[in-house]
C-alpha cells in the first residue's frame, strides 16, 4: 500500500480557527451520492468527539432528471464542542455540486460562509436547467461568500486515473474528493471513511482504491493549495458523560426500542406488519433484518391488512406492531378501532409527513396529532406518545410496548420524517438497566370470561388460543361487561364505554409527572412543544435565558392521556405559546382540556423550525401586553 505521507516533505502546521459549532450542507444531484458523503462526514465528526445533529433532505423522486432543482439531494450536519440539538439554522459551509444545488441551497448560507462549487458542472445546459441566465460564478452575485471555484470533476479524474475506471465509474467517485476536502477543512481524520469504502467495495477493489485515492487527493488539495479564501476550522470535542457512543437515527433507535420492549415484556415473538410508505418503510427494513430476535416481518397487501395482521398476531400472543405515515394511518383507522374494542395490544408507529392526502411525502410535519388522539369513529380513546429526538425513539419505543401490553390497548407512537432520518450521537444504554414489565397470558379457566379486568389498571386479561378451557369469541361488536358475549344493552354500552375511557385515562397515574425542560416552573411565558420540535425550542429558550429573559420550556411526551400535573403547571405561567409544525393542534387540546389561553405558533413548510425564528417569536410573545 502506498504511504505517501512518509515521503512527502513536512507540511507547516495549519493555523485553524477554533469554532464552537459549525453547520455544513452537502448538496448535489440525487445521483451524486450526497447522502453517503454526509453520513461519512458524520462518522468522522462523531469519532472526533463532537456532538452533532444531521438532517438528510432528499427529493421524493428516486431519480429525478439530472441537473434539475427538484432533483437536488442534500445532507446537513451541525456539529460542535457544546450540546447540539438541531441541524442548525444557517450554513457555515455549503458544497454545491451543480448549479441546481446552488440555486436551491444558497439562501441558507450565511454571509461570509464558505461555498464550494464544482465549476465543471456550471455549463449552459445545467445553468439553464437550474433557471440561471448568467452563471452566478461570473456575475458577482456570490461576492458575499468565500467561494472555492474548483474543477472537482477534473481533480477527481486525475486522482482516479491510475485505476482505469470507466468514465461513468470515475465520475461517481467525485463525491469522495469533496468529502476529502471538507474533512481537511475541519481537521478530521479519514480512517473511518477509508475503512467504510474498503468494506463497501470489497468485491471491487479497484473501485475502492479509486475512491480512497480521490478522498486522499481532496484532503491533500486542502493542505497544499493555499486556499487563501478559506480559513480552516477546528471544533473541539464536546464534553459528554463517559460511556460507549454511536450515532443513531430515529429509525434505528425506534426499531431497537421495539425489540427491547418485546424482550422487557417477555414476549418471544414480534409480528411487524407493514405496507411500504415514505418515510416509514425504513423501520420495516430494519426490523426485517432482526429475525434472530424473534421478529417476523410481514409486508402486507395494504395498510388495512397490515394493521389487521398486527391485531391477529396479538390475539395469538405475539406483539403486533404496524408502522405507517398519515395517509396509511387513515386507512388503518377502522382496524385501530377493532384493536381498541377487542382490547388487544398493538403498537402503531406513525412516522408523520406533510399532509393532507399525499401531501409532502419526504418532508416533515407533525400534523397528525388530531388523527392520533381523536381520529376514529365512536368513543375510541387510546394512548398517544411522541418522540423528541432520534435517540429518544429508543426509550419511547420501549414505553409504547409497556403501555400496550400492560393496558391491553393499541398505542399510537408519533414520530416524524425528520426524526426518522436525522441522527445524533447516542450513549448506548445498558441493556441490563432497561425496565422489565413481563406480561402474563391468562390460563385459569375458573370464572373466566374474556373481559375479566385487572381492578387497578382495568386492562382485560390476555388469553391466547391454544390454552385449554379459555375458548372464547371476541370481535368488534360491543360485549357484555360480565360475560363477554355480544350485548346491545344500553346500560352495558355506557359501562363499557366508560371503562374503556377510564382505562386510558388511568394511564396518567402510571407515567412520569410533566417536568419543565428548561427555565423556572412559573413565570411570564412557557413554550409547550411535542415531538421533534424539542431541539429548536430548547436552543431558543436557552438563548433567551442567557439574555436574562424569563421563559420556560415544557416538552410533552405523553399526549393522551396528558401527565396529571400538566394543567396545574401550565396555569403557573402568564402566557402559553405552542410551537407546532402544523396549523395548531396540540394548542386546541390544551385549551380544551385546561381552559388555558394558549396561543399557537404554527409552521408547515415541511422544514423544522429554525432557532432564530423561534427566538423572535418567543421574544415577541414576551413583549405582548397579554
Amino acid at each position, binding site marked *: 500500500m502506498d504511504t505517501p505521507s512518509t515521503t512527502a516533505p513536512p507540511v507547516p502546521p495549519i493555523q485553524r480557527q477554533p469554532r464552537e459549532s459549525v453547520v455544513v450542507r452537502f448538496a448535489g444531484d440525487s445521483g451524486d451520492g450526497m447522502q453517503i458523503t454526509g453520513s461519512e462526514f458524520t462518522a468522522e465528526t462523531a469519532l472526533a468527539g463532537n456532538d452533532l445533529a444531521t438532517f438528510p433532505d432528499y427529493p421524493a423522486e428516486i431519480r429525478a432528471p439530472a441537473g434539475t432543482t427538484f432533483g437536488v439531494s442534500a445532507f446537513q450536519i451541525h456539529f460542535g464542542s457544546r450540546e447540539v440539538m438541531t441541524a442548525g439554522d444557517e450554513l457555515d459551509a455549503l458544497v454545491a455540486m451543480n448549479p441546481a444545488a446552488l440555486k436551491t441551497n444558497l439562501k441558507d448560507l450565511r454571509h461570509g460562509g464558505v461555498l464550494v462549487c464544482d465549476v465543471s458542472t456550471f455549463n449552459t445546459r445545467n445553468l439553464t436547467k437550474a433557471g440561471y441566465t448568467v452563471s452566478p460564478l461570473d456575475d458577482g452575485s456570490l461576492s458575499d461568500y468565500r467561494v472555492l471555484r474548483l474543477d472537482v470533476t477534473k481533480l477527481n479524474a486525475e486522482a482516479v486515473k491510475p485505476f482505469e475506471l470507466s468514465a461513468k465509474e470515475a465520475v461517481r467517485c467525485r463525491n469522495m474528493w469533496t468529502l476529502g476536502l471538507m474533512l481537511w477543512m475541519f481537521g478530521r481524520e479519514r480512517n473511518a471513511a477509508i475503512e467504510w469504502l474498503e468494506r463497501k467495495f470489497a468485491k471491487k477493489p479497484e473501485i475502492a482504491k479509486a475512491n480512497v485515492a480521490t478522498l486522499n487527493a481532496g484532503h491533500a488539495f486542502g493542505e497544499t493549495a493555499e486556499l487563501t479564501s478559506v480559513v480552516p476550522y477546528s471544533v473541539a470535542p464536546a464534553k459528554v458523560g463517559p460511556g460507549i457512543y454511536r450515532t443513531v437515527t430515529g429509525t434505528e433507535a425506534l426499531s431497537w426500542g421495539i425489540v427491547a420492549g418485546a424482550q422487557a415484556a417477555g414476549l418471544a415473538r414480534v409480528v411487524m406488519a407493514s405496507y411500504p410508505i415514505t418515510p416509514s418503510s425504513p423501520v420495516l427494513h430494519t426490523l426485517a433484518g432482526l429475525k*434472530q430476535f424473534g421478529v417476523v416481518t410481514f409486508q402486507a397487501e395494504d395498510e388495512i391488512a397490515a394493521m389487521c395482521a398486527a391485531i391477529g398476531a396479538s390475539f395469538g400472543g405475539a406483539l403486533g406492531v404496524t408502522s405507517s405515515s398519515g395517509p396509511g394511518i387513515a386507512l388503518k383507522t377502522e382496524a385501530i378501532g377493532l384493536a381498541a374494542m377487542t382490547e388487544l395490544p398493538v403498537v402503531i408507529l406513525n412516522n408523520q409527513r406533510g399532509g393532507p392526502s399525499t401531501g409532502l411525502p419526504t418532508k416533515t410535519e407533525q400534523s397528525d396529532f388530531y388523527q392520533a388522539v381523536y381520529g376514529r369513529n365512536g368513543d375510541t380513546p387510546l394512548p398517544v406518545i411522541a418522540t423528541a429526538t432520534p435517540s429518544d425513539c429508543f426509550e419511547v419505543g420501549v414505553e409504547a410496548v409497556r403501555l400496550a401490553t400492560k393496558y391491553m390497548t393499541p398505542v399510537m407512537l408519533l414520530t416524524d420524517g425528520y426524526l426518522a432520518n436525522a441522527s445524533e450521537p447516542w450513549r448506548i444504554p445498558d*441493556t441490563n438497566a432497561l425496565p422489565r414489565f413481563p406480561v402474563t397470558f391468562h390460563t385459569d379457566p375458573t370464572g373466566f370470561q374474556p373481559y375479566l379486568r385487572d381492578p387497578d389498571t382495568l386492562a382485560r386479561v390476555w388469553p*391466547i388460543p391454544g390454552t385449554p378451557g379459555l375458548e372464547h369469541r371476541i370481535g368488534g361488536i360491543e360485549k357484555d361487561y360480565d360475560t363477554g358475549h355480544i350485548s346491545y344493552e344500553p346500560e352495558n354500552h355506557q359501562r363499557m364505554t366508560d371503562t374503556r375511557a377510564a382505562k386510558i385515562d388511568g394511564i396518567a397515574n402510571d407515567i412520569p409527572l410533566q417536568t419543565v425542560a428548561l427555565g423556572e416552573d412559573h413565570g411570564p411565558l412557557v413554550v409547550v412543544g411535542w415531538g421533534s420540535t424539542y431541539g429548536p425550542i430548547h436552543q431558543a429558550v436557552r438563548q433567551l435565558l442567557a439574555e436574562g429573559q424569563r421563559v420556560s420550556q415544557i416538552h410533552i411526551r405523553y399526549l393522551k392521556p396528558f401527565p396529571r400535573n400538566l394543567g396545574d403547571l401550565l396555569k403557573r405561567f402568564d402566557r402559553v405559546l405552542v410551537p407546532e409544525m402544523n396549523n395548531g393542534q396540540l394548542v386546541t387540546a390544551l385549551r380544551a382540556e385546561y381552559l388555558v389561553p394558549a396561543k399557537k405558533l404554527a409552521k408547515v413548510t415541511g422544514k423544522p423550525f429554525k432557532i432564530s425564528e423561534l427566538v423572535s417569536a418567543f421574544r415577541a410573545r414576551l413583549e405582548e401586553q397579554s
Partner: protein
Amino acid sequence: MTATMPTPLKPSDFESDQEVRWCPGCGDYAILKAVQRTLADVGARTENTVFVSGIGCSSRFPYYVSTYGFHTIHGRAPAVATGLKLANPELDVWLVTGDGDGLSIGGNHLLHVLRRNVDLTIMLFNNEIYGLTKGQYSPTSRVGTRSPSTPMGSLDLPVTPSLFALGAGARFVARSVDTQQAHLVGVLKRAHAHRGASFVEIFQNCVVYNDGVFDEFTDRSVAADRQLLAEHGKPLVFGKDRDRGLRLKPGTLDLEVVTIGAAGVSEGDILVHDETNRTLANLLGSLHPPEFPQVLGVLYCSPAASYEQVVFDQMNAAAGKGPQDLASLMRTGRTWTVAG
C-alpha cells in the same frame, strides 16, 4: 410415561352456549352442522381451533362454535388470520366469509391470502346477496338482479368465486352445497387436510332475500341432472342414469356435454378428473346450468409449502446469525468510547 389420548369430541362438543340467531331456514344452519361434524371427524381440539370471520350473516359463525373465535371487521378476516398464523403457526385456523365480505370489500385480502398460501381453511358462503344489510345485490349476483339498490336490475357482471381463487393462485379449490351434508362434510375434510390455503365455496340459500337462487341445480328434482360431483381419477359423469359426461370438444379447449352410448360416444371418451390440473379446474369452474352441470367437489388440489412454513424456515435460517443480543446489536457499526 404414557401419553393419554385426549377424549374424542362429538359434533355437539363444538356447539357454543350462544343461541344461534340466523333466520329460520337459513342455509347457514346446515353449514354450521356440517362444520361441527367435520371438526369431530377430524379430531379437532377446541383449544387449538380458531374461527376468524369478517362481517355479514356468515361472519356471525364464530359465536356458534365452542372454539376460539374472532369476529373481525368487514373483509379483513384473511389479514387477521394471517397475523394469527404468524404468531402461532400451530393453530388450526378457519376463515368464514361471504360473497360480499370476501369478494367485494375484502377482495384484495382474499386474493393475497390465497396467493401467499397461508395455511387456512377458507369457507366462502355464497348466497349471491347482501343479507345483513337487507338485500342489496352482491358481486356474485347475476346480471339483472333486482334489489333495493338496483330496482331496475343489477348491471355489473358477477365474479365466479372458484375462478377468482384459481386466478389468485389458490392450491385448493372446492365447491359444495349447504344442504348436501354428506358431500359438504367430505369436501370440508379434504380442505382441512390440505396444508396451505384451501378455498371452499359453499352455495348457501338465503331464505329471506334470495330464496331459491340455486334451485336450478340444488332442487332435489333436478340435482342429479344438474350437478356433477367431481372426484379425482374418476370420469366426469353425471345424470340420474350416470350416462352423461364431459369431454373436450375436439379441436378446442372447451368442454361439451355428451351422452354415453349416443352418437358413438363411449365411456372411454369421457374426461377423467385430474384435480392437480389447473387448466381443467378452470374449465370445470366456468360451467353453469342449464347448458352444463354445476361441478361440485374438489376442482383443484396441488399442495405447495405454506406461507408460514417458508416464513419460519427463514426465521430458523436467520437464527444464530448476526448479533444475538440487544447489547451487541446496538454496538454494531462505528462506536467510540468516552472515558470517565
